[in-house]
């Protein structure tokens, strides 16, 4: 509880200079009893940036998101800065748009009412929120599905509803935890291109977890590779590929050489988890 971090005080500037990162994590660690999930994560995200995170399974990616969304407090000694202010994780509740690994749609709400859930919680006018959601449906490929219930939707559609819900919660920072993990390859490619369009239009900052290196490069301004558990940032690479990005980008030499480098780093880490024990 008593963490050595500066609590948001009136002494600090309320305004964030343009070059100030929206999210700044230093020496961020998290221990669950015996298990150390994160060990000294350092990362910064600039406003408007699209940062992708890849890493072996169980390295603490979701834990990182749970902290940044305010659900879990990091260990003492961790520094968590948001919009230029040092904060406790719990102060981030309600301040970032979090999309968990599963869609978690509510079975008794139709598409529109699932999408407006965060606005309802904020106390927004329901009729206005519904009208807004209705206008956003086509953009999310859900035109004509307003009154459908989750059990009537395909996996890809459910994921789009969950994404729409995340976008309707208008916060500058979006945390997307493997949003396309459960989709087939074709749907996935479509969704990636679509997400880039939506992101460019809405001008949000995105932190995006994935298992797929192609996806990480195709989407990101910056790709972070995490180490095996306890997780830390092993490698950070800027993706210098022009936007808007087209599908044939994945065969370009720059793409392939970056992919090679990232895959090597991930494989090295995966070996630590699954390879022969060599202490």
């Amino acid at each position, binding site marked *: 509880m008593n963490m050595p971090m500066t609590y948001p005080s009136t002494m600090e500037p309320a305004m964030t200079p343009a070059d100030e990162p929206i999210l700044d994590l230093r020496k961020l660690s998290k221990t669950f009893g015996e298990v150390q999930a994160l060990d000294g994560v350092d990362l910064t995200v600039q406003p408007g940036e699209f940062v992708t995170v890849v890493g072996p399974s169980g390295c603490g990616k979701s834990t990182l998101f749970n902290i940044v969304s305010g*659900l879990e407090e990091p260990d003492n000694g961790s520094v968590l800065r948001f919009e230029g202010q040092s904060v406790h994780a719990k102060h981030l*509740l309600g301040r*970032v748009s*979090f999309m*968990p690994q599963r869609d*978690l749609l509510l079975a*008794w709400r139709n598409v529109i009412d699932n999408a407006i*859930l965060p606005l309802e919680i904020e106390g927004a006018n329901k009729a206005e929120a519904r009208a807004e959601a209705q206008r956003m449906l086509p953009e999310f490929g859900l035109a004509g599905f307003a009154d459908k219930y989750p*059990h009537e939707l395909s996996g890809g559609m459910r994921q789009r509803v969950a994404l729409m819900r995340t976008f309707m919660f208008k916060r500058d920072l979006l945390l997307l935890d493997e949003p396309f993990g459960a989709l087939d390859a074709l749907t996935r490619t479509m969704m990636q291109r679509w997400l880039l369009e939506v992101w460019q239009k809405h001008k949000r900052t995105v932190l995006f977890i994935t298992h797929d290196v192609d996806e990480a490069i195709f989407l990101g301004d910056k790709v972070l590779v995490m180490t095996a558990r306890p997780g830390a940032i092993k490698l950070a690479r800027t993706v210098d590929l022009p936007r808007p990005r087209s599908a044939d980008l994945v065969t370009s030499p720059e793409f392939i050489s970056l992919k090679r480098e990232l895959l090597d780093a991930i494989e090295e880490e995966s070996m630590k988890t699954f390879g022969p024990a060599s202490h």
Partner: protein
Amino acid sequence: MTYDPMSPSQHALARGVFGGLALFAIWELAARLFDLPSYILPAVSEIIARFWTARAVLGEAAAYTLGEALAGYLLGGAIGVALALAVTLVPQLRKVIVPAATAVNSVPVVAFSPLILLWFGMGVSSKIVMVAVAVSFTMFVSALAGFDRVDERSVNLMRSFGASRAAILWKLRLPTALPLILSGMRLSTVRSLIVAIVTEMLGAYGGLGWVIYQAVIVIDFVQVWAAIFVASIASLGFFAVVSFLERRLVFWR
């Protein structure tokens, strides 16, 4: 596919009605063929005739019993759901409430009836209390199973939107538990009437149980059967109404 104007539940209803009619036909035939005395088995026609002649008494008794059962049912339902909610919101209570409730329920409720009659008298309150005791346990178990189905990840999602505990309760926990709460309510309908009637037989100023008890004393078995028929019609009606509400409210499954 051939067009079928009846839904599966209508089919079930049709089969039920057919089965009932067949049973009545065999019953009537047996009673007449073997010329059974009415204290063993009166003919169905005799019982139905009694419906008419004793309609005032039976109608009043049915209303009396249904009133008690309904009051106890609602009270017990509210208590059961409230306890399950308390256990859900304050997990430390689980270790206290669950064993206590199980201990109370391990004895058939009817065993408590002498005490309850002593404490609450022969009037309607003792019946309402008995029904409430019987229903609250079933409802506690159903509602608790319902609340336990709430996905912690959904709770976290709502917290990340800045939801208060009350908002999470109202928008997530209650709707998640609703299907099991309502199926508990459906199962409790029949139980509530049985307990009301049995308690009336042990001491009351009115109701179907009281009518049965009085009829046994004067050896009027047609009256006993007429009251039993009325009780089962009331029971079926109560069950049907709650089933209908359940299907309406839990539309998403």
